[in-house]
């Protein structure tokens, strides 16, 4: 049985790759296709639970004007990756304490001097 985290990921992958918004039933059917983590026994209520969680976290939007409701991703996969990378690169203010970056506080000038030192012949 797949965990809720795996399901969230599978649902997001489907929504990211789909141009038209999808209903919970359509998602269930796609998740049941062979090769996906969820397997066949998935109930549509489980998919709705996952969608509700993702909606609450602001990752998924719901179109409510027609029934059944249709779901779509709020932000593209690429934009999410860029947001993560910006935090990883330390370009987001007020986020310095969130993660520990390998390069720490090394500046561009220091990187440049380091390159000269490492590339100099007697240091090869």
């Amino acid at each position, binding site marked *: 049985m797949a965990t809720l985290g795996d399901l969230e990921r599978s649902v997001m992958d489907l929504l990211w790759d789909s141009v038209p918004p999808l209903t919970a039933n359509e998602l269930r059917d796609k998740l049941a296709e062979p090769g996906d983590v969820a397997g066949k026994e998935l109930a549509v209520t489980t998919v709705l639970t996952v969608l509700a969680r993702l909606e609450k976290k602001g990752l998924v939007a719901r179109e409510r004007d027609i029934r059944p409701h249709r779901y779509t991703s709020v932000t593209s996969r690429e934009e*999410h990756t860029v947001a993560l*990378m910006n935090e990883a690169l330390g370009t987001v203010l007020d986020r310095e304490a*969130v*993660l520990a*970056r390998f390069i720490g506080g090394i500046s561009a000038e220091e990187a440049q001097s380091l390159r000269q030192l490492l590339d*100099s012949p007697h240091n090869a």
Partner: protein
Amino acid sequence: MLLTSYILAGLAILLAWPIPVMLSRARWSTRSPFAAMILWQSIALAGGLSMIGALLFWGLNPMGNTLISSLISGVKLVLGDPNVNSPGTVHIFALSTAALLGFHLVLTLIRAAWRITRQRAKHRHILSLLSEKSPTDPTTLVLDHETPVAYCLPSFSGSVTVLSRGLVKQLTEDELRAVMAHERAHLDQRHDLLLLAFTSWNDALPWLPTSKLSLAAVQELVEMLADDAALREVEPKTLLRALLTVATGALGAPATPNAALPPEGAPGGPTEELSSRRLKRLLTVQPQLGGGLRATIIAGALFLIALPTTLVIVPGFFE
């Protein structure tokens, strides 16, 4: 009590200004980042204690000879006992400031911890949707991006190390091992907790010039500590090459390796002086600080904590 409050005030001033400035300039810290880290932590703790203690003791002074007796008088006063003389406005002001400062420091610490935990959880969640677990190590996640980055995300419910695909592609196996050992040390030695007090100190007392200075010093020290862990696995040069690759990718430094190199045979070699102490100690390996010196520094750190604690806890120590 009055004498105690003066001693505490003197200590608070020393710990708020000259001592952090001296320590941030001390050359030996690169030779024993561990001892320097202990000293910084004790300065933060002792500084807070003596600052609040000085105000508290001075404010309570007119109400009794010991901390306990004056606190009892204080409570009686608040309850409206006519037999207790009011200590006067200035002393009440000092007491209020002590209480406010104490609350302010504790609340800022809680708020900083809360904010950081929430931001980490959010980052971690998006990461779980976008990254692949490393086949060899489930606590290592690989993010699909060409820029070489490596970082770790501490968490009580399972810390992870994150590498970008670009990093895995650009580094050699040994360099990758250095990065992993470095990040693993951050997580294993709980460097996030060592930084927390200084992050919140910087939030709480932004007007204190040394709070920024201390945060920067402690941030540099955790990198040195993590580098030392990496050096148990690889040569300094391997770690430096890994750092250079990541820094080049992350900071957009020129990608052509020899662009800024002086012509072959140019006298003097590199002219630029490296300002990063972290890089300097990797380029020229320095001997570790002697055991005796390290023990002295750690004993000094313990004394720094013990002094205000004793002064606060043992009431009427000098009377």
